[in-house]
Protein backbone atom coordinates (compact mmCIF):
# COMPACT_ATOMS: atom_id res chain seq x y z
CA UNK A 1 0.00 0.00 0.00
CA UNK A 2 1.09 3.53 -0.76
CA UNK A 3 0.02 6.72 0.94
CA UNK A 4 -3.41 8.20 0.29
CA UNK A 5 -3.97 11.20 -1.93
CA UNK A 6 -6.50 12.49 0.59
CA UNK A 7 -8.73 13.86 -2.11
CA UNK A 8 -12.48 14.06 -1.84
CA UNK A 9 -14.73 13.11 -4.72
CA UNK A 10 -17.17 15.49 -6.32
CA UNK A 11 -20.75 15.10 -5.09
CA UNK A 12 -22.55 13.00 -7.70
CA UNK A 13 -25.12 14.87 -9.76
CA UNK A 14 -28.83 14.09 -9.66
CA UNK A 15 -31.52 15.35 -12.00
CA UNK A 16 -33.08 18.75 -11.32
CA UNK A 17 -36.43 17.00 -11.79
CA UNK A 18 -39.71 18.46 -13.06
CA UNK A 19 -40.06 21.00 -10.26
CA UNK A 20 -36.75 22.84 -10.72
CA UNK A 21 -38.73 26.09 -10.94
CA UNK A 22 -39.62 25.96 -7.26
CA UNK A 23 -35.99 26.28 -6.30
CA UNK A 24 -34.51 28.41 -9.06
CA UNK A 25 -37.36 30.54 -10.44
CA UNK A 26 -40.11 30.40 -7.80
CA UNK A 27 -41.94 33.51 -9.06
CA UNK A 28 -42.18 31.85 -12.49
CA UNK A 29 -44.20 29.02 -10.93
CA UNK A 30 -46.43 31.26 -8.82
CA UNK A 31 -44.51 31.03 -5.56
CA UNK A 32 -44.47 34.74 -4.83
CA UNK A 33 -43.40 36.66 -1.77
CA UNK A 34 -40.32 34.60 -0.96
CA UNK A 35 -37.86 36.35 -3.31
CA UNK A 36 -38.62 39.78 -4.81
CA UNK A 37 -37.53 38.59 -8.25
CA UNK A 38 -36.21 35.42 -9.81
CA UNK A 39 -32.44 35.41 -10.01
CA UNK A 40 -30.90 35.85 -13.45
CA UNK A 41 -34.00 37.12 -15.27
CA UNK A 42 -32.56 40.56 -16.11
CA UNK A 43 -29.07 40.68 -17.61
CA UNK A 44 -28.77 44.20 -19.01
CA UNK A 45 -29.60 47.73 -17.88
CA UNK A 46 -29.43 51.16 -19.55
CA UNK A 47 -25.72 51.45 -18.84
CA UNK A 48 -24.60 48.03 -20.05
CA UNK A 49 -22.06 48.38 -22.84
CA UNK A 50 -22.43 46.45 -26.07
CA UNK A 51 -24.84 45.44 -28.80
CA UNK A 52 -28.24 44.36 -27.45
CA UNK A 53 -29.25 40.95 -28.71
CA UNK A 54 -31.96 38.45 -27.96
CA UNK A 55 -31.50 34.70 -27.72
CA UNK A 56 -34.33 32.29 -28.43
CA UNK A 57 -33.24 28.85 -27.34
CA UNK A 58 -35.15 25.57 -27.39
CA UNK A 59 -34.11 22.12 -26.19
CA UNK A 60 -35.45 19.20 -28.24
CA UNK A 61 -35.64 15.57 -27.16
CA UNK A 62 -34.97 12.48 -29.27
CA UNK A 63 -38.36 12.77 -30.98
CA UNK A 64 -37.84 16.46 -31.83
CA UNK A 65 -40.30 17.60 -29.16
CA UNK A 66 -39.29 20.78 -27.31
CA UNK A 67 -38.76 20.32 -23.57
CA UNK A 68 -41.21 22.39 -21.55
CA UNK A 69 -39.71 21.71 -18.16
CA UNK A 70 -36.04 22.53 -18.77
CA UNK A 71 -33.99 25.37 -17.36
CA UNK A 72 -31.08 27.03 -19.11
CA UNK A 73 -28.32 29.12 -17.59
CA UNK A 74 -25.98 31.19 -19.72
CA UNK A 75 -22.56 32.61 -18.86
CA UNK A 76 -20.70 35.03 -21.05
CA UNK A 77 -18.07 37.75 -21.26
CA UNK A 78 -18.90 41.45 -21.53
CA UNK A 79 -18.60 43.48 -24.74
CA UNK A 80 -14.83 43.68 -24.26
CA UNK A 81 -14.37 39.97 -23.69
CA UNK A 82 -13.96 40.20 -19.91
CA UNK A 83 -15.77 38.00 -17.39
CA UNK A 84 -17.35 39.56 -14.33
CA UNK A 85 -15.58 37.16 -11.98
CA UNK A 86 -12.77 37.19 -9.39
CA UNK A 87 -10.98 34.74 -11.68
CA UNK A 88 -10.76 37.45 -14.35
CA UNK A 89 -7.26 38.94 -14.02
CA UNK A 90 -7.09 40.71 -17.39
CA UNK A 91 -9.07 43.76 -16.34
CA UNK A 92 -12.30 44.99 -14.80
CA UNK A 93 -15.44 43.80 -16.54
CA UNK A 94 -18.40 46.11 -17.20
CA UNK A 95 -19.92 46.70 -13.72
CA UNK A 96 -23.34 46.87 -15.39
CA UNK A 97 -23.14 43.36 -16.72
CA UNK A 98 -22.88 40.25 -14.57
CA UNK A 99 -22.74 37.98 -17.61
CA UNK A 100 -24.94 35.31 -16.07
CA UNK A 101 -28.59 34.63 -16.82
CA UNK A 102 -31.18 31.99 -16.09
CA UNK A 103 -34.41 31.16 -17.91
CA UNK A 104 -36.91 28.30 -17.67
CA UNK A 105 -38.35 27.08 -20.96
CA UNK A 106 -41.82 28.45 -21.64
CA UNK A 107 -44.39 25.92 -20.47
CA UNK A 108 -46.30 26.19 -23.79
CA UNK A 109 -43.69 26.88 -26.47
CA UNK A 110 -40.52 25.52 -24.92
CA UNK A 111 -38.63 28.72 -25.79
CA UNK A 112 -36.11 30.33 -23.45
CA UNK A 113 -35.79 34.02 -24.29
CA UNK A 114 -32.76 35.95 -23.03
CA UNK A 115 -32.06 39.66 -23.50
CA UNK A 116 -28.32 40.19 -23.37
CA UNK A 117 -25.38 41.66 -25.28
CA UNK A 118 -23.08 40.21 -27.86
CA UNK A 119 -19.96 39.07 -25.96
CA UNK A 120 -16.45 40.14 -26.93
CA UNK A 121 -13.73 37.66 -27.72
CA UNK A 122 -11.95 35.79 -24.93
CA UNK A 123 -8.46 34.34 -25.28
CA UNK A 124 -7.91 30.60 -25.44
CA UNK A 125 -5.22 29.04 -23.23
CA UNK A 126 -2.50 29.80 -25.77
CA UNK A 127 -3.54 33.44 -26.24
CA UNK A 128 -5.34 33.03 -29.55
CA UNK A 129 -8.77 34.63 -29.46
CA UNK A 130 -11.80 32.36 -29.32
CA UNK A 131 -14.81 33.38 -31.39
CA UNK A 132 -17.55 35.20 -29.47
CA UNK A 133 -19.57 32.59 -27.62
CA UNK A 134 -21.97 32.04 -24.76
CA UNK A 135 -21.67 29.07 -22.41
CA UNK A 136 -24.90 27.12 -21.91
CA UNK A 137 -25.78 24.85 -19.02
CA UNK A 138 -28.99 22.85 -19.33
CA UNK A 139 -30.87 20.91 -16.67
CA UNK A 140 -34.25 19.16 -16.73
CA UNK A 141 -36.15 16.11 -15.68
CA UNK A 142 -34.42 13.16 -17.35
CA UNK A 143 -31.04 14.90 -17.50
CA UNK A 144 -28.84 13.24 -14.88
CA UNK A 145 -25.90 15.65 -15.13
CA UNK A 146 -26.22 19.24 -16.35
CA UNK A 147 -25.31 19.55 -20.03
CA UNK A 148 -22.57 21.97 -21.01
CA UNK A 149 -22.26 23.44 -24.49
CA UNK A 150 -21.71 26.75 -26.27
CA UNK A 151 -23.65 29.05 -28.54
CA UNK A 152 -21.64 30.68 -31.35
CA UNK A 153 -22.98 33.31 -33.77
CA UNK A 154 -23.83 32.80 -37.45
CA UNK A 155 -22.59 36.28 -38.39
CA UNK A 156 -19.09 35.63 -37.01
CA UNK A 157 -18.00 33.31 -39.78
CA UNK A 158 -14.40 34.38 -39.83
CA UNK A 159 -13.95 34.19 -36.06
CA UNK A 160 -15.77 30.86 -35.95
CA UNK A 161 -13.44 29.47 -38.63
CA UNK A 162 -10.46 30.20 -36.37
CA UNK A 163 -12.01 29.13 -33.07
CA UNK A 164 -9.82 26.58 -31.26
CA UNK A 165 -12.76 24.74 -29.67
CA UNK A 166 -14.81 24.47 -32.86
CA UNK A 167 -11.60 23.30 -34.57
CA UNK A 168 -11.51 20.27 -32.28
CA UNK A 169 -14.78 18.87 -33.58
CA UNK A 170 -13.72 15.87 -35.60
CA UNK A 171 -16.94 15.46 -37.58
CA UNK A 172 -17.17 18.85 -39.28
CA UNK A 173 -20.79 18.24 -40.16
CA UNK A 174 -21.56 18.74 -36.46
CA UNK A 175 -20.02 22.21 -36.14
CA UNK A 176 -23.27 24.00 -37.13
CA UNK A 177 -24.99 22.43 -34.11
CA UNK A 178 -23.18 25.11 -32.05
CA UNK A 179 -24.01 28.08 -34.27
CA UNK A 180 -27.12 30.21 -33.62
CA UNK A 181 -28.85 31.77 -36.65
CA UNK A 182 -29.37 35.51 -36.67
CA UNK A 183 -32.99 36.63 -37.19
CA UNK A 184 -33.27 40.41 -36.82
CA UNK A 185 -31.83 41.34 -33.44
CA UNK A 186 -32.15 37.83 -32.09
CA UNK A 187 -30.30 34.60 -32.48
CA UNK A 188 -32.27 31.39 -32.71
CA UNK A 189 -30.68 28.23 -31.35
CA UNK A 190 -32.05 24.70 -31.09
CA UNK A 191 -30.28 22.26 -28.81
CA UNK A 192 -30.86 18.68 -29.97
CA UNK A 193 -30.36 16.17 -27.18
CA UNK A 194 -30.24 13.21 -29.59
CA UNK A 195 -30.43 12.21 -33.21
CA UNK A 196 -28.64 13.11 -36.41
CA UNK A 197 -28.39 16.75 -35.39
CA UNK A 198 -27.35 16.04 -31.79
CA UNK A 199 -25.65 19.12 -30.37
CA UNK A 200 -21.99 18.81 -29.48
CA UNK A 201 -21.87 18.68 -25.67
CA UNK A 202 -18.70 19.32 -23.72
CA UNK A 203 -16.63 17.57 -21.10
CA UNK A 204 -14.45 20.35 -19.78
Amino acid sequence: MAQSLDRLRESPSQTAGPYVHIGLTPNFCSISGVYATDLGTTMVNDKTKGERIGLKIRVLDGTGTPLKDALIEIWQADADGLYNSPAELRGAADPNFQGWGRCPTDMETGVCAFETIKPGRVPFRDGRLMAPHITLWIVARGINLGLHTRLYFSDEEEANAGDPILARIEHRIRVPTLVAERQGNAYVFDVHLQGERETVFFDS
Partner: protein
Amino acid sequence: MPAESGSNRRPETAAFFQRDRTWHPPALTPGYKSSVLRSPQKALLSFDNTQSEIAGPVFGHAMLGELDADLIHNFAKPGESAIGERIIVHGRVLDERGVGVPGVLIEFWQANAGGRYRHKKDGYLAPLDPNFGGCGRTITGDDGGYAFRTVKPGPYPWPNGPNDWRPAHIHFSVFGHGFAQRLITQMYFEGDPLIWKCPIVRGIADKAAIEALTAILDTQATIPMDALAYKFDIVLRGRRSSLFENRLEGN
Protein backbone atom coordinates in the same frame (compact mmCIF):
# COMPACT_ATOMS: atom_id res chain seq x y z
CA MET B 1 -11.69 42.34 -11.10
CA PRO B 2 -14.30 42.49 -8.33
CA ALA B 3 -12.56 42.05 -4.98
CA GLU B 4 -13.76 39.34 -2.63
CA SER B 5 -14.93 41.29 0.36
CA GLY B 6 -12.89 40.70 3.49
CA SER B 7 -10.33 38.64 1.62
CA ASN B 8 -6.89 39.59 0.39
CA ARG B 9 -6.24 36.19 -1.11
CA ARG B 10 -5.27 36.11 -4.74
CA PRO B 11 -8.16 34.56 -6.65
CA GLU B 12 -7.52 31.10 -7.99
CA THR B 13 -7.48 30.86 -11.75
CA ALA B 14 -6.23 27.36 -12.52
CA ALA B 15 -8.26 24.77 -14.41
CA PHE B 16 -10.41 22.23 -12.58
CA PHE B 17 -9.76 18.54 -12.09
CA GLN B 18 -11.26 16.38 -14.77
CA ARG B 19 -14.75 15.25 -13.88
CA ASP B 20 -15.04 11.51 -13.10
CA ARG B 21 -18.05 10.65 -15.20
CA THR B 22 -18.18 7.06 -13.92
CA TRP B 23 -18.90 8.44 -10.45
CA HIS B 24 -21.86 10.49 -11.69
CA PRO B 25 -24.93 8.80 -13.14
CA PRO B 26 -24.52 8.32 -16.90
CA ALA B 27 -26.81 10.28 -19.23
CA LEU B 28 -28.80 7.17 -20.14
CA THR B 29 -30.28 5.30 -17.16
CA PRO B 30 -33.21 3.32 -18.67
CA GLY B 31 -34.68 2.55 -15.23
CA TYR B 32 -35.39 6.29 -15.09
CA LYS B 33 -37.58 6.50 -18.16
CA SER B 34 -37.33 10.25 -18.74
CA SER B 35 -33.62 9.83 -19.45
CA VAL B 36 -34.23 7.64 -22.50
CA LEU B 37 -35.12 10.43 -24.95
CA ARG B 38 -33.18 13.15 -23.14
CA SER B 39 -29.73 11.56 -22.99
CA PRO B 40 -27.08 12.61 -25.49
CA GLN B 41 -25.68 9.56 -27.26
CA LYS B 42 -22.61 10.87 -29.01
CA ALA B 43 -19.21 11.25 -27.39
CA LEU B 44 -18.65 14.50 -25.48
CA LEU B 45 -16.07 16.97 -26.77
CA SER B 46 -13.29 17.04 -24.18
CA PHE B 47 -10.96 19.99 -23.66
CA ASP B 48 -9.05 21.56 -20.81
CA ASN B 49 -10.92 24.47 -19.21
CA THR B 50 -10.65 27.83 -20.92
CA GLN B 51 -11.36 31.14 -19.20
CA SER B 52 -15.05 30.59 -20.02
CA GLU B 53 -15.17 27.56 -17.69
CA ILE B 54 -12.60 28.77 -15.14
CA ALA B 55 -14.44 32.02 -14.36
CA GLY B 56 -17.87 32.10 -12.79
CA PRO B 57 -20.47 34.54 -11.48
CA VAL B 58 -20.32 35.80 -7.89
CA PHE B 59 -23.31 36.35 -5.62
CA GLY B 60 -23.06 38.61 -2.62
CA HIS B 61 -24.75 38.22 0.76
CA ALA B 62 -26.64 41.45 0.02
CA MET B 63 -29.06 39.55 -2.23
CA LEU B 64 -30.28 37.39 0.65
CA GLY B 65 -33.50 38.14 2.51
CA GLU B 66 -33.84 37.62 6.22
CA LEU B 67 -35.91 34.43 5.90
CA ASP B 68 -34.29 32.95 2.80
CA ALA B 69 -32.73 30.11 4.81
CA ASP B 70 -35.86 29.41 6.84
CA LEU B 71 -38.39 27.39 4.85
CA ILE B 72 -40.55 27.01 7.94
CA HIS B 73 -41.34 30.72 7.84
CA ASN B 74 -40.41 32.21 4.45
CA PHE B 75 -43.79 31.42 2.90
CA ALA B 76 -45.87 31.27 6.09
CA LYS B 77 -48.43 33.82 7.19
CA PRO B 78 -47.21 36.05 10.02
CA GLY B 79 -47.24 34.10 13.26
CA GLU B 80 -47.74 30.75 11.52
CA SER B 81 -45.29 28.08 10.41
CA ALA B 82 -45.03 25.09 8.11
CA ILE B 83 -46.24 21.71 9.34
CA GLY B 84 -43.85 18.79 9.71
CA GLU B 85 -40.79 17.42 11.43
CA ARG B 86 -38.62 20.46 12.05
CA ILE B 87 -35.01 20.00 10.95
CA ILE B 88 -31.79 21.93 10.52
CA VAL B 89 -29.68 20.97 7.51
CA HIS B 90 -26.08 22.07 7.81
CA GLY B 91 -22.68 21.24 6.40
CA ARG B 92 -19.85 22.61 4.33
CA VAL B 93 -19.16 23.09 0.68
CA LEU B 94 -15.66 21.76 0.02
CA ASP B 95 -13.70 21.17 -3.12
CA GLU B 96 -11.95 17.92 -4.00
CA ARG B 97 -8.81 19.15 -2.24
CA GLY B 98 -10.80 19.33 1.00
CA VAL B 99 -10.73 23.12 1.06
CA GLY B 100 -13.88 24.95 2.20
CA VAL B 101 -15.40 27.05 -0.58
CA PRO B 102 -16.68 30.44 0.66
CA GLY B 103 -19.21 32.67 -1.06
CA VAL B 104 -21.06 29.80 -2.73
CA LEU B 105 -24.72 30.35 -3.55
CA ILE B 106 -26.77 27.29 -2.59
CA GLU B 107 -30.43 27.09 -3.58
CA PHE B 108 -32.66 24.29 -2.32
CA TRP B 109 -36.20 23.11 -2.98
CA GLN B 110 -38.37 20.31 -1.71
CA ALA B 111 -41.82 18.81 -1.26
CA ASN B 112 -43.74 19.52 1.94
CA ALA B 113 -44.00 17.11 4.87
CA GLY B 114 -46.69 15.16 3.01
CA GLY B 115 -44.59 14.75 -0.14
CA ARG B 116 -46.42 17.38 -2.21
CA TYR B 117 -44.73 20.13 -4.23
CA ARG B 118 -46.21 23.60 -4.63
CA HIS B 119 -46.24 23.28 -8.43
CA LYS B 120 -49.13 23.09 -10.85
CA LYS B 121 -47.66 19.97 -12.43
CA ASP B 122 -47.75 18.05 -9.13
CA GLY B 123 -51.11 16.34 -8.74
CA TYR B 124 -50.24 14.03 -5.83
CA LEU B 125 -53.21 13.74 -3.49
CA ALA B 126 -51.28 14.73 -0.38
CA PRO B 127 -52.44 18.26 0.57
CA LEU B 128 -50.56 21.48 0.10
CA ASP B 129 -49.48 23.19 3.30
CA PRO B 130 -50.68 26.81 3.05
CA ASN B 131 -47.62 27.86 5.05
CA PHE B 132 -44.98 26.06 3.00
CA GLY B 133 -43.52 27.28 -0.30
CA GLY B 134 -40.61 24.86 -0.59
CA CYS B 135 -37.69 27.04 -1.69
CA GLY B 136 -34.76 28.60 0.13
CA ARG B 137 -31.20 29.78 -0.42
CA THR B 138 -28.04 30.78 1.39
CA ILE B 139 -24.40 31.65 0.73
CA THR B 140 -21.54 29.79 2.37
CA GLY B 141 -19.39 31.52 4.98
CA ASP B 142 -15.60 31.84 5.12
CA ASP B 143 -15.07 28.14 5.88
CA GLY B 144 -17.62 26.96 3.31
CA GLY B 145 -20.23 26.37 6.02
CA TYR B 146 -23.96 26.74 5.53
CA ALA B 147 -27.19 25.95 7.39
CA PHE B 148 -30.92 26.26 6.85
CA ARG B 149 -34.12 25.37 8.64
CA THR B 150 -36.98 23.44 7.10
CA VAL B 151 -39.39 20.56 7.63
CA LYS B 152 -38.44 17.06 6.57
CA PRO B 153 -39.97 16.42 3.14
CA GLY B 154 -42.18 13.39 2.69
CA PRO B 155 -41.54 10.62 0.15
CA TYR B 156 -43.84 10.68 -2.88
CA PRO B 157 -44.99 8.43 -5.71
CA TRP B 158 -44.07 9.40 -9.26
CA PRO B 159 -44.98 8.22 -12.73
CA ASN B 160 -42.12 6.00 -13.84
CA GLY B 161 -42.74 2.36 -12.99
CA PRO B 162 -46.29 1.50 -11.87
CA ASN B 163 -45.33 1.89 -8.22
CA ASP B 164 -42.15 3.95 -7.87
CA TRP B 165 -41.61 6.20 -4.87
CA ARG B 166 -38.97 8.84 -4.38
CA PRO B 167 -37.15 8.67 -1.05
CA ALA B 168 -37.43 11.83 1.03
CA HIS B 169 -35.03 14.32 -0.53
CA ILE B 170 -34.05 17.94 -0.86
CA HIS B 171 -32.84 19.29 -4.22
CA PHE B 172 -29.63 21.37 -4.12
CA SER B 173 -28.24 23.77 -6.71
CA VAL B 174 -24.67 24.92 -6.08
CA PHE B 175 -22.41 27.50 -7.70
CA GLY B 176 -18.66 27.27 -7.18
CA HIS B 177 -16.13 29.90 -8.17
CA GLY B 178 -15.90 28.65 -11.74
CA PHE B 179 -18.80 27.85 -14.03
CA ALA B 180 -17.30 24.37 -14.57
CA GLN B 181 -18.14 23.62 -10.92
CA ARG B 182 -21.87 24.19 -11.45
CA LEU B 183 -23.80 21.33 -9.90
CA ILE B 184 -27.36 20.24 -9.15
CA THR B 185 -27.91 17.25 -6.91
CA GLN B 186 -30.21 15.82 -4.25
CA MET B 187 -29.77 15.11 -0.56
CA TYR B 188 -31.23 11.95 0.96
CA PHE B 189 -31.79 11.07 4.61
CA GLU B 190 -29.86 8.40 6.50
CA GLY B 191 -31.85 5.23 7.08
CA ASP B 192 -34.51 5.74 4.39
CA PRO B 193 -35.23 2.30 2.85
CA LEU B 194 -36.57 3.95 -0.32
CA ILE B 195 -33.12 5.22 -1.27
CA TRP B 196 -31.99 1.83 -2.53
CA LYS B 197 -35.17 1.22 -4.55
CA CYS B 198 -35.26 4.56 -6.37
CA PRO B 199 -34.55 4.43 -10.14
CA ILE B 200 -33.08 7.95 -10.07
CA VAL B 201 -30.70 7.10 -7.23
CA ARG B 202 -29.84 3.77 -8.84
CA GLY B 203 -28.52 5.59 -11.90
CA ILE B 204 -25.44 6.03 -9.71
CA ALA B 205 -23.31 2.90 -10.00
CA ASP B 206 -21.17 3.16 -6.88
CA LYS B 207 -22.71 2.59 -3.46
CA ALA B 208 -20.17 4.97 -1.95
CA ALA B 209 -21.36 7.71 -4.30
CA ILE B 210 -24.95 7.21 -3.13
CA GLU B 211 -23.79 7.36 0.48
CA ALA B 212 -22.07 10.65 -0.37
CA LEU B 213 -25.55 12.06 -1.09
CA THR B 214 -27.03 10.74 2.15
CA ALA B 215 -27.13 13.20 5.03
CA ILE B 216 -26.32 11.86 8.48
CA LEU B 217 -28.35 12.53 11.62
CA ASP B 218 -26.33 14.92 13.77
CA THR B 219 -27.55 14.83 17.34
CA GLN B 220 -24.93 17.39 18.44
CA ALA B 221 -26.44 20.01 16.16
CA THR B 222 -30.07 19.51 17.13
CA ILE B 223 -31.94 22.26 18.94
CA PRO B 224 -33.45 20.65 22.04
CA MET B 225 -37.26 20.61 22.04
CA ASP B 226 -37.21 22.26 18.61
CA ALA B 227 -35.43 20.69 15.63
CA LEU B 228 -33.45 17.62 14.61
CA ALA B 229 -30.32 18.16 12.57
CA TYR B 230 -28.77 16.50 9.53
CA LYS B 231 -25.26 17.14 8.27
CA PHE B 232 -24.72 17.26 4.51
CA ASP B 233 -21.37 18.19 2.98
CA ILE B 234 -21.17 19.01 -0.71
CA VAL B 235 -18.00 18.54 -2.74
CA LEU B 236 -17.26 20.58 -5.87
CA ARG B 237 -14.53 20.01 -8.43
CA GLY B 238 -11.07 20.96 -7.20
CA ARG B 239 -8.60 23.20 -8.97
CA ARG B 240 -5.25 22.05 -10.21
CA SER B 241 -2.17 23.74 -8.88
CA SER B 242 -0.87 26.28 -11.36
CA LEU B 243 2.56 26.48 -9.68
CA PHE B 244 4.46 24.49 -12.24
CA GLU B 245 2.11 24.83 -15.14
CA ASN B 246 3.88 25.64 -18.37
CA ARG B 247 1.66 28.30 -19.86
CA LEU B 248 2.28 29.54 -23.33
CA GLU B 249 3.11 33.14 -24.07
CA GLY B 250 0.21 35.56 -24.20
CA ASN B 251 -1.88 33.98 -21.48
